[in-house]
């Protein structure tokens, strides 16, 4: 084979390829250009000059190259390798025997039409952007460029390695010339390599196929040294480097020169060149079946998203620190959506792409957007339209979430918002190709991927994975949305590809059965709803019954517990029966209506309310007397039994008021024993803890005592003072001290001392209790001290076990803030003390929500029920993840 001598990628005096050609284009030529390079038509250019400028821009040329088919791309790559000004005749040799001159001519024609290459007689002129294509076909830089980076000493070592003789006093250029004679001769390159040890031959083969660089800064530092050890010399890349088959490049790497790689490829740029487009293999399918599967799928996707929104509305999902949904959150969502985790991930992504679910970085949660209510209220076709149009338009890869990254960890859902430029175009191209198949013919993602990979290999491989994977993603997403089913475009999907979304939505609208509102109720206390149930009916039914089985139909089971939820939600027995009767296709079985009546009979026979204190009497007459006394009116006393009154005021206040009214009340403790009555001393709430003052924190405000040097009591007072000021500024002027500084215990606690205290602090009105972290940030905001936020993040893991109620609350709040797991012991609902390792999901003044790690149960525990808590060490925590 005649040696091809590729030119360098850049040459002086390049001709402006675009200007001259555009000047000469007629209307048809211009039309062709604007069609084949659509970016030039949008926005429409004002003049030829503008068109020329835009067409010559690097971005536009890259976009043009991205849309070339595989063969044209190969020919263009060959042009890039040959460089500007090469002869057309050199092309076939470089492309190999599979490329016929006619095919090459056709490809050159296409490339010329798109203004990236121009033929001037027998000479090829190449657009500079093309000519400077980095690593074309996986080839490295030309040998002359690479060798120029070496020192004379290094070059001499290479000469020695190749057995080339030097006089000893040559200049660098002439040494390079000597080396080039060897390296540009394929025969000689092959013969040098024939003597190589096997490891070096394997490496050379790999580098020849591209990418052309091997990295090893350590081994290469001695590559050209006279003092290289035997071990260094045995390294395959060192062996190759000392013979010029790779050349040290960019310090830590060694690159194989372009000529060497080409020689090893047998002079051919590509292992195979196929000029003809592969056909899309299809098989016939029943379009009715395809449509019914597609409709079923899109309905289940829609209802999955609906369930997702409903679930997130009630329980916003916590985001990981690094962003995205963790495995545990996702598992919960999957259960709520009745979908396998893998599918649930996609649904979450599609919902996010459609703007139905958003991430709120303030609260680090994922929750439904405000616009989701419109979506929920609309019909199936409208819902589908929003999902499918946003999917078509999104420049992200919804299917990326859940796939494994290079470390083998799955990308979390809602974590990747990187906008690419290719995904939407990839989808469009895939749909266009599928739309060209006969209606009702099926194909597979593999076949589609092969065709797409031929039609626009650059476009399809743009993104986080390879083109086959990208196609598989599109395929899967299209299936989820009912665009594809059983390997064929559904009628709606075809309309989407050809006629647009309007027509597609019409088809979906007519194909999707109207949601039904009737269910079959049975005497075994089950209900069966076939198909999609009207949302309002479904929500009501899910309030009254538990879902037992899902799928094309939903089976519900009524139980006492489930029906009681209805009563809890304020429904009466009549309302429930009316609802059941109006939606029961075959009547309400007696057993069910009886059960409803029976629960109604028992519902509310026990009543629970809130009171801050009680007054109990020996005889009803005295109770009546107290009720009638004017001075007790402001206590808001209510009679709950003949001899029991309750008040929203604390015991201290009630005690004082009744004494003042001339009665002789005694203060009793939890056990009914009388408490010795001392004058009330006001205190802030019981949660004062170390979390307020991490070491080294600056004083809270000027003039305040340094909290780190003062005792607990003064710190308490400080916090309480700030809290009070904060609350007063809120407008509550008459509330003397409304905020019990982040009290960890509930006001309902009947502990006598606390009632004293709380009763004094809170005058008759229930206040929402801010959680410690909210209070902390309020204080920090007030003082303009950003450290208030930051300091919490930098906390060290505490090692001590907290037992005091205030400490427990503070430690749990810390654990929540820092995502630490905790071990705690608490009094279970049924007798007995339990211990558990938990993740803190939320904490407020009185209760903490926990995720129990071994069973995955969510627990809600009153802080008062917790006996001790400690933070897991990092090593312990490792075991749980």
């Amino acid at each position, binding site marked *: 084979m005649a040696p091809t001598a590729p030119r360098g990628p850049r040459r002086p005096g390049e001709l402006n390829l675009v200007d001259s050609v555009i000047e000469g284009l007629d209307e048809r030529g211009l039309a062709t250009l604007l069609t084949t390079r659509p970016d030039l038509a949008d926005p429409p250019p004002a003049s030829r000059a503008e068109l020329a400028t835009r067409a010559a821009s690097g971005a536009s040329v890259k976009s043009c190259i991205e849309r070339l088919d595989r063969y044209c791309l190969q020919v263009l790559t060959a042009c890039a390798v040959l460089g500007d000004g090469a002869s057309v005749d050199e092309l076939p040799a470089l492309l190999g025997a599979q490329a016929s001159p006619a095919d090459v001519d056709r490809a050159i024609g296409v490339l010329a039409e798109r203004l990236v290459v121009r033929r001037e007689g027998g000479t090829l002129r190449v657009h500079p952007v093309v000519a400077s294509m980095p690593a074309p076909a996986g080839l490295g830089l030309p040998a002359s460029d690479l060798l120029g980076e070496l020192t004379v000493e290094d070059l001499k070592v290479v000469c020695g390695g190749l057995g080339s003789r030097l006089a000893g006093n040559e200049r660098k250029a002439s040494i390079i010339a000597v080396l080039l004679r060897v390296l540009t001769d394929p025969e000689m390159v092959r013969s040098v390599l024939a003597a190589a040890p096997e490891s070096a031959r394997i490496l050379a083969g790999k580098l020849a196929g591209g990418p052309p660089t091997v990295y090893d800064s350590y081994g290469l530092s001695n590559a050209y040294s006279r003092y290289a050890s035997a071990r260094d010399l045995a390294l395959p890349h060192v062996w190759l480097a000392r013979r010029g088959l790779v050349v040290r490049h960019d310090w830590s790497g060694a690159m194989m020169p372009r000529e060497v790689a080409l020689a090893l490829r047998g002079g051919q740029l590509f292992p195979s060149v196929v000029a003809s487009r592969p056909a899309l293999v299809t098989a016939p399918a029943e379009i009715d*079946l395809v449509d*019914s*599967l597609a409709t*079923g799928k899109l309905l289940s996707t829609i209802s999955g998203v609906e369930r997702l929104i409903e679930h997130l509305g009630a329980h916003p999902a916590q985001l990981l620190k690094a962003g995205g949904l963790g495995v545990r959150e996702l598992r919960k969502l999957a259960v709520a959506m*009745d979908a396998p985790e893998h599918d649930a991930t996609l649904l979450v992504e599609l919902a996010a792409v459609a703007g139905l679910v958003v991430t709120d970085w303030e609260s680090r949660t994922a929750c439904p957007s405000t616009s989701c209510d419109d979506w929920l209220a609309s019909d199936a076709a409208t819902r589908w339209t929003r999902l499918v149009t946003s999917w078509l338009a999104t420049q992200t890869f919804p299917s990326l979430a859940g796939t494994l990254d290079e470390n083998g960890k799955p990308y979390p859902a809602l974590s990747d918002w990187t906008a690419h430029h290719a995904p939407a175009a990839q989808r469009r191209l895939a749909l266009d190709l599928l739309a060209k198949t006969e209606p009702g013919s099926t194909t597979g993602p593999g076949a589609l991927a092969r065709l797409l990979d031929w039609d626009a290999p650059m476009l399809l491989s743009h993104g986080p994975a390879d083109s086959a994977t990208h196609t598989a993603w599109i395929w899967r997403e299209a299936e989820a949305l009912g665009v594809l089913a*059983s390997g064929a475009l559904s009628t709606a999907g075809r309309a989407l590809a050809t006629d647009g979304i309007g027509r597609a939505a019409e088809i979906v609208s007519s194909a999707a*059965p109207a949601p*039904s509102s*009737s*269910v*079959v109720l*049975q*005497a*075994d*206390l*089950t209900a*069966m*709803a*076939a*198909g999609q149930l009207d949302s309002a009916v479904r929500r009501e039914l899910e309030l009254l019954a538990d879902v037992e*089985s*899902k*799928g*094309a*139909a939903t*089976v519900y089971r009524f139980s006492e517990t489930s029906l009681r939820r209805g009563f809890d939600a304020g429904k009466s027995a009549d309302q429930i029966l009316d609802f059941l009767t109006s939606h029961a*296709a*075959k009547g309400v*079985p*007696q*057993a069910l209506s*009886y059960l409803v009546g029976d629960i109604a009979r*028992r519902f509310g026979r026990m009543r629970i309310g809130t009171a801050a204190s009680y007054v109990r009497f020996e005889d009803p007459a005295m109770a009546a007397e107290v009720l009638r006394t004017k001075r007790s009116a402001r206590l808001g006393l209510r009679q709950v039994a003949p001899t029991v009154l309750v008040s929203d005021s604390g015991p201290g206040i009630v005690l004082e008021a009744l004494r003042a009214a001339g009665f002789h009340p005694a203060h009793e403790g939890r056990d009914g024993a009388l408490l010795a009555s001392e004058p009330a001393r006001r205190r802030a709430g019981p949660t004062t803890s170390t979390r307020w003052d991490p070491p080294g924190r600056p004083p809270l405000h000027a003039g305040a005592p340094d909290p780190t040097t003062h005792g607990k009591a003064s710190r308490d007072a400080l916090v309480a003072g700030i809290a009070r000021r904060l609350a007063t500024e809120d407008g509550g002027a008459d509330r003397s001290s409304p905020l019990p500084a982040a009290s960890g215990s509930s006001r309902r606690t009947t502990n006598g001392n606390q009632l004293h205290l709380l009763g004094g602090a809170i005058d008759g009105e229930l206040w929402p209790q801010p959680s410690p972290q909210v209070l902390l940030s309020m204080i920090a905001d007030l003082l303009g001290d950003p450290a208030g936020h930051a300091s919490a993040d930098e906390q060290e893991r505490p090692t001590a076990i907290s037992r005091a109620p205030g400490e427990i609350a503070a430690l749990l709040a810390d654990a929540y803030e820092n995502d630490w797991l905790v071990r705690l012991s608490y009094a279970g609902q049924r007798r007995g003390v339990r211990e558990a390792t938990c993740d803190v999901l939320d904490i407020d003044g009185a209760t903490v929500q926990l995720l129990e790690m071994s069973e995955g149960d969510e627990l809600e525990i009153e802080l008062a029920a917790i006996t001790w808590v400690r933070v897991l060490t990092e090593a312990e925590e490792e075991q749980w993840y």
Partner: protein
Amino acid sequence: MVLSNDSPGGGPLPGPLIVQSDQTLLLEVDHVAAEACRAAIAAFAELERAPEHVHTYRITPLGLWNARAAGIGAAQVTAALRQWSRYPVPDALLVGIEEVIGRYGRLVLETDARHGLVLVASDRAVLEEVVRAKSVAPLLGPRIDADTVAVYRGERGRLKQALVVLGWPAEDRAGYVDGAAHPITLAGAVELRPYQRQAITAFAASGNGVVVLPCGAGKTLVGLGAMAQAGARTLILVTNTVAARQWRAELLARTSLTADELGEYSGETKHVRPVTIATYQIVTTRRGGLYPHLDVLSAEDWGLVVYDEVHLLPAPVFRMTADIQSRRRLGLTATLVREDGREGDVFSLIGPKRYDAPWRDIEAQGWIAPASCTEVRVTLTDEERMTYALAEPEERYRVGATARSKMAVVAALCRDALEAGEPTLVIGQYIDQLEDLARRLDAPVLTGKTPVRERQRLFAAFRSGELRLLVVSKVANFSVDLPEASVAIQVSGTFGSRQEEAQRLGRILRPKADGRQAQFFSVVARDTNDQEFAQRRQRFLAEQGYAYRIVDAETLLA
């Protein structure tokens, strides 16, 4: 909802079946194609619930393997689902079914002339997997070649059990020993009902398995039919002596067997004859760590073993059954629900369910009496409620169930029944309560303490119509044939036992001469756990299509 009766435009009706993603199948029974569909899916899916409108079947690996053993392949299952389903069947589900069915038969138990019982694999990897399993290794003998391993003969049952657990059920082609022949024919006058014939055929085709039929539907006759088919020495295992006598009477009346050929093996007599009836109690009698009677019976060359009331089969009998896997085995029961959850052992040791029909279907065909079920809620007096509230937790059920307020209601129900001339049973759990009731109702009481002779006398009097009202304890739960009873009043039970409820209803399901409806009353104390347990007890029957009506005692007494 798209129901069968609305087919817009007169197009083809949508199918009666809905395939759920959790592998349940919902069959709409009012659909015109419901019966055809039921026939198709019953072969591979288990009937789970059969209430009035929508029946639930479940596809389980056991059911699929069972179907595969009967020659039904994945293609047929898939086709049936596709044909009858109203909505497109999820592909994933069909793929899953294919996969599960494909696991059956990669291992085959065969008899080899040289090595005896062998396990042969058509998939070597599976064999390698199972021989390494801890549960299987001790049951296997030496490796014969790459695909074959010897099996200890006595371990055939346990091996099959273990392989099912591992998910690679073996196809058992080792066959059965015929046992010593002993010709039995049904008496000429005996005419089998269609479902009985189907049940016998289904059993005979495989040689092992369980037939599930409601009480009163003639299970005994299925047993007799199976014996006639086998024509071999037969061991019949029954729950108690009364049941043993009843089998004996049936055998004498409806087969060619004579008294000489029949042996009873119970606490009273111990005769081993060509057809022997033994009670569970005697075979599980233990002496010095051994089961002497079990050993005596196991040593015989039986050609068929019949297990009556297989849901009550005690553990030692399971062990014996594992040892006699080469004999034909027939289990009979009204319900496969076992309160101890050993349904899986019944499947692998006795055999899979071979025949099952919803109770209501058999009732509709007129083979069992139609029945109405009523739960009567009794409001307790304040005093009783206080007693209940203060009772120890473990005593609560007893206190609630035996509340005296029930007396008046039971008396009223009995009065109505007797006035209408209905033979009535009062059934309960607690002897004190039953004796109180008997005194108040002036009726004889029959409990575990009643001697067998006296029991038989009472049953005979009841059957003849001389006695109209009988108070019975749980001894009458099973295998007592009282064809004339048409009203049963349950006053207390074994907590939430679903099978007990089914058995008790079964007492009154034998078809009545005049086609009267049977009535089942359950008297329950309101707002106590008696009510909760009652609901649990009713679940099986509700799932079988028996709808309980609930009435207040006040309404009833008014």
